[in-house]
């Protein structure tokens, strides 16, 4: 499989105020993050709230510009292209958000919402566009007669279908999906996950699938990247990361996820102590060292770099094997 997306050492910093009188502080939301996604592949991106997942996603779709590094799409650097030069690439990368309400104009009719990207990019005449929209509606499981409804007439799951139809309109090669099923009722999540798998096969789509739900990510991803405080700490095949986690934080995460297994009521793995430190004041060396049962002197001094370990995954840990 050939490389579609090549993310090279991207970083993003935000300046946040700390209240009256205090000096503003800098958050390293994303630091030195690199990965690739091949055509038709799904990379899952997991980690706890605030670790930088959405910021990575936004830099890929150019909602944010990286402070350092570069995003390459099909071999072209796109991070610093002008609005105009970006156009042909915009079509190739689309985004689907957690909260479809926030991303859909409440006054616009559903059909117009899906047609809009076609109009903006000057694709087809009115009749051709309408046919395409109808086709997309039925493809995502909406009825063409719902094209005249406003978003509030749709259920949460249907609104997410609508957002997916709009993302598909321009035939993208990559969809960045940020928590696409988290806001949905549990009985609706499987429908949307299946829809995403089906259209992936049909259109040869690649996904960056951002989620905190580790079960959903395991189901849908070919490879998985685990983030902690702005950095990737482990990246590899889904089965390596889930079944043979090599980074102590990945271990902690996997052990913490509840399983639908009543036997675990009586013997559950030991639970890691401590909390995620503030990103305003990250620990020295390896950011996980205050919580890590394997931490030694070097962990407090030196930041570990990603390197390949026995499981086949790449892991940023001095002591992983």
């Amino acid at each position: 499989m050939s490389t579609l997306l090549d993310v090279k050492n991207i970083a993003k910093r935000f300046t946040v105020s700390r209240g009256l009188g205090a000096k503003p502080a800098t958050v390293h939301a994303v630091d030195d993050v690199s990965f690739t996604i091949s055509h038709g592949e799904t990379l899952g991106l997991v980690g706890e709230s605030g670790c930088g997942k959405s910021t990575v996603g936004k830099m890929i779709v150019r909602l944010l510009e990286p402070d350092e590094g570069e995003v390459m799409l099909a071999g072209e650097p796109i991070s610093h292209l002008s609005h105009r030069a970006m156009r042909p690439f915009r079509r190739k990368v689309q985004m689907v958000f957690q909260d479809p309400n926030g991303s859909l104009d409440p006054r616009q009719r559903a059909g117009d919402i899906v047609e809009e990207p076609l109009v903006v990019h000057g694709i087809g005449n009115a009749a051709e566009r309408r046919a395409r929209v109808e086709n997309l509606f039925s493809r995502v499981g909406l009825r063409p007669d719902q094209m005249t409804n406003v978003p509030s007439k749709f259920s949460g799951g249907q609104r997410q279908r609508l957002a997916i139809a709009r993302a598909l309109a321009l035939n993208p090669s990559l969809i960045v999906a940020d928590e696409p099923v988290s806001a949905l009722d549990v009985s609706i999540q499987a429908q949307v996950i299946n829809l995403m798998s089906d259209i992936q096969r049909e259109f040869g789509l690649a996904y960056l699938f951002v989620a905190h739900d580790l079960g959903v990510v395991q189901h849908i991803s070919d490879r998985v990247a685990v983030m902690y405080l702005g950095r990737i700490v482990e990246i590899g095949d889904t089965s390596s990361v889930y079944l043979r986690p090599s980074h102590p934080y990945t271990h902690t995460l996997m052990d913490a996820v509840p399983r639908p297994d009543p036997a675990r009521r009586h013997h559950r793995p030991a639970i890691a102590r401590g909390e995620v430190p503030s990103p305003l004041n990250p620990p020295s060396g390896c950011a996980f060292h205050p919580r890590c049962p394997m931490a030694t002197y070097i962990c407090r001094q030196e930041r570990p770099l990603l390197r390949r370990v026995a499981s086949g995954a790449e892991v940023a840990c001095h002591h992983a094997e």
Partner: protein
Amino acid sequence: MTPLLSIEGLTVELSTGDRNFEAVSDITLAVARNEVLALVGESGSGKSMTAMAIMRLLPEPVADIVAGTILFDGIDLASASEAALRGIRGNRIGLIFQEPMTSLNPSIRVGPQVAEVLRLHKGLDAVNARRRVEQLFEQVRIPDPRRRYDDYPHQMSGGMRQRVVIALALACDPDVLIADEPTTALDVTTQAQILETFRDLQASVGAATILITHDLAVVAETADRIAVMYAGRIVEETTTEQLFASPRHPYTHGLLGSIPHVADTDATRRGDRLPEIAGTVPALWALPPGCAFEPRCPRASDRCLSERPPLAELAPGHKTACWHPVETAA
């Protein structure tokens, strides 16, 4: 085991502008001392309304108990006076909500907030109240409890705030504990820590506990018994082991099959389609006359369209509301 809290035929009606409907319909439940009963269901299925009804904290005048009894230690909470309820809430019945700030006052330091409850309900003097609060903070594993005593809620992380709420709920050694989505807003490692604390303390206090959540995996690891709600009614109720081994209601069965939980094997291949539950959750004001799950149910017959199935004990200790229950696993 004699139940400590028993709810019978509880019905909560909502009147919002142009509509009247039942958010909770004819619910019967009982919890004994030392027992954790989980109430699970999707958003809007009536879990929180049930909890609010038990505590008589329903949003007025929108919601009202229109039928049923809630017996706690010989008192019917459904008809008890506000004065009687004030002596019970936060004292003999402890409460934990999803959002810790529902229970905490943002402008009062956390230690004194918990101490105030002890003074009010237990008559402790200032010195003893403070000593007890520090003990409680230690029990809920707040690191450095003496120093955190004087923190304001906003100076704490979400996980720490929820620990304070657990301390508050347990301060008066309650007989009953009601926890509504206590870990839903938390990250997975924090959730695991809080659930562990919750389980340990629940067991040491021996409180009869109702744990409300939409997360079946949390339930599997925490509850003794489970009641599944759909559209305001209990559709299945049995022990945790039984429910996971042999769900009989098509809705429960569908849910257990459709949610991708973390698997410790490679058994499910990536890209495999998940079994889906078709359709969407119905609006409570437009429920079908028969079984509320009928429009989505693969087992539905004509009878399901017109007649509502009662919650019946199909096997000892296993109740299901369905005309055509899923066969038991062999």
